[in-house]
């Protein structure tokens, strides 16, 4: 049973507060949708939760331990940002092959094949990542989530550039992850994810 908790976190840039007093408490099997207009600080909040940015107030805990400076937390988490985080010079297959070892997993060629098949990327396996279309690149980024099991998913606009078919797949992936062992935090405009019945957090009202 994992637990992800944020207590009274806030983030300030000079004089303007991006968000204040955000409280999050999630157990395994729970998800959270972060809503808010563009520029309301959704991405900043997600980066703070992932530990990439330091909050100016409050603290964030993973299984009762403050995440600050803990390498083990970073490896418990999938972070999918606006950019796909691909290695442009490597092929689709190599990207996943690299990632599996990087995350500390045993390489399993069949598993990579399976993931590529499911995301309809199999026929591009030898194409350089930079040559993929926006939708294909996004799917390759999502492939990382499927390839390596990690309990916490932090997804920033994961549905960007996806067609309806892939959107449904992503929806199923999230539902699957929650039902197994996961916690999901997702920032999105997409109404499609309403079916997941996640708790909601609205940003923007707090900000003046």
């Amino acid at each position, binding site marked *: 049973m994992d637990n992800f908790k944020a207590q009274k976190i806030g983030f300030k840039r000079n004089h303007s507060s991006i968000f204040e007093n955000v409280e999050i408490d999630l157990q395994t099997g729970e998800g959270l949708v972060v809503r808010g207009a563009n520029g309301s600080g959704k991405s900043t909040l997600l980066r703070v939760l992932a*530990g990439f940015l330091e909050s100016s107030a409050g603290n964030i805990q993973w299984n009762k331990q403050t995440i600050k400076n803990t*390498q083990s937390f970073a490896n418990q988490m999938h972070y999918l940002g606006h*950019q*796909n*985080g691909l290695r442009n*010079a490597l092929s689709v297959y190599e990207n996943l092959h*690299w*990632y599996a070892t990087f995350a500390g997993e045993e390489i399993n060629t069949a598993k990579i094949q399976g993931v590529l098949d499911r995301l309809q990327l199999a026929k591009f396996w030898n194409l350089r990542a930079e040559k993929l279309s926006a939708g294909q690149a996004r799917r390759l980024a999502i492939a990382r989530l499927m390839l390596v099991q990690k309990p916490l998913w932090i997804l920033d606009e994961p549905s960007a550039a996806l067609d309806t078919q892939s959107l449904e797949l992503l929806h199923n992936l999230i539902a699957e992850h929650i039902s197994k062992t996961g916690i999901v935090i997702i920032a999105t405009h997409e109404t499609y994810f309403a079916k997941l019945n996640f708790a909601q957090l609205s940003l923007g009202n707090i900000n003046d």
Partner: protein
Amino acid sequence: MIKLIVNEINYEMKSIQRDWWNWIIPVVFFVMVAALFPLAIGNNPELLTQIASGIIWIAALLATLLSCGNLFKNDAQSGHLDVLLTGALPVSAILFCKIACHWLAFCGPLILITPLLGIFFKMEVAHIQLLIITLLLGTPILCLLAASLAALTINLENKNLLLPLLIMPLFIPILIFGTGIVLATPAEVSAGLALLGAMLLLSIGFLPLMTMLALKVGVN
């Protein structure tokens, strides 16, 4: 652990060598800068031989600045740096692998071509040998320094101007030892090399950590 490091190095080298211009440009730049000096100073062979080690070192320094200053540019643009923070290896170890690969790919060819430049400048063989040794010890320090400051300035708009300003003063000791050793007496040579080696070890120990901290500040 070793498997992870091998994986890092393997794929880093793959992505560097796949775009061949990545490692050709610094070498061409290096040779061109060195070629500018005879044109600027005049083709007096004695003078050129005397200052050859300085010329080659300055050319190497500028080439390193140029190539390592952009070490994290692509990774930052593609969001890959965020992924790098979520791996099984300590971030500083990954960064060290990355810098080591870039040193091999950028400074390796540069050092390989140095004997040729030495012959162009009519340097003595013993001096060329010493020059190569100092380059082998010194350029990794340059790469580590450049990488750490490149990480710090990664999101700044004026980084192209700022980076040289920040790095050059830190490069000076290495430049001094690198060129000084070539011209020094044998007793000073061993002392100088030992110092350069000590500086290299210090940099390896300290600068990857500094790069990691700098990335956390810079990626903001």
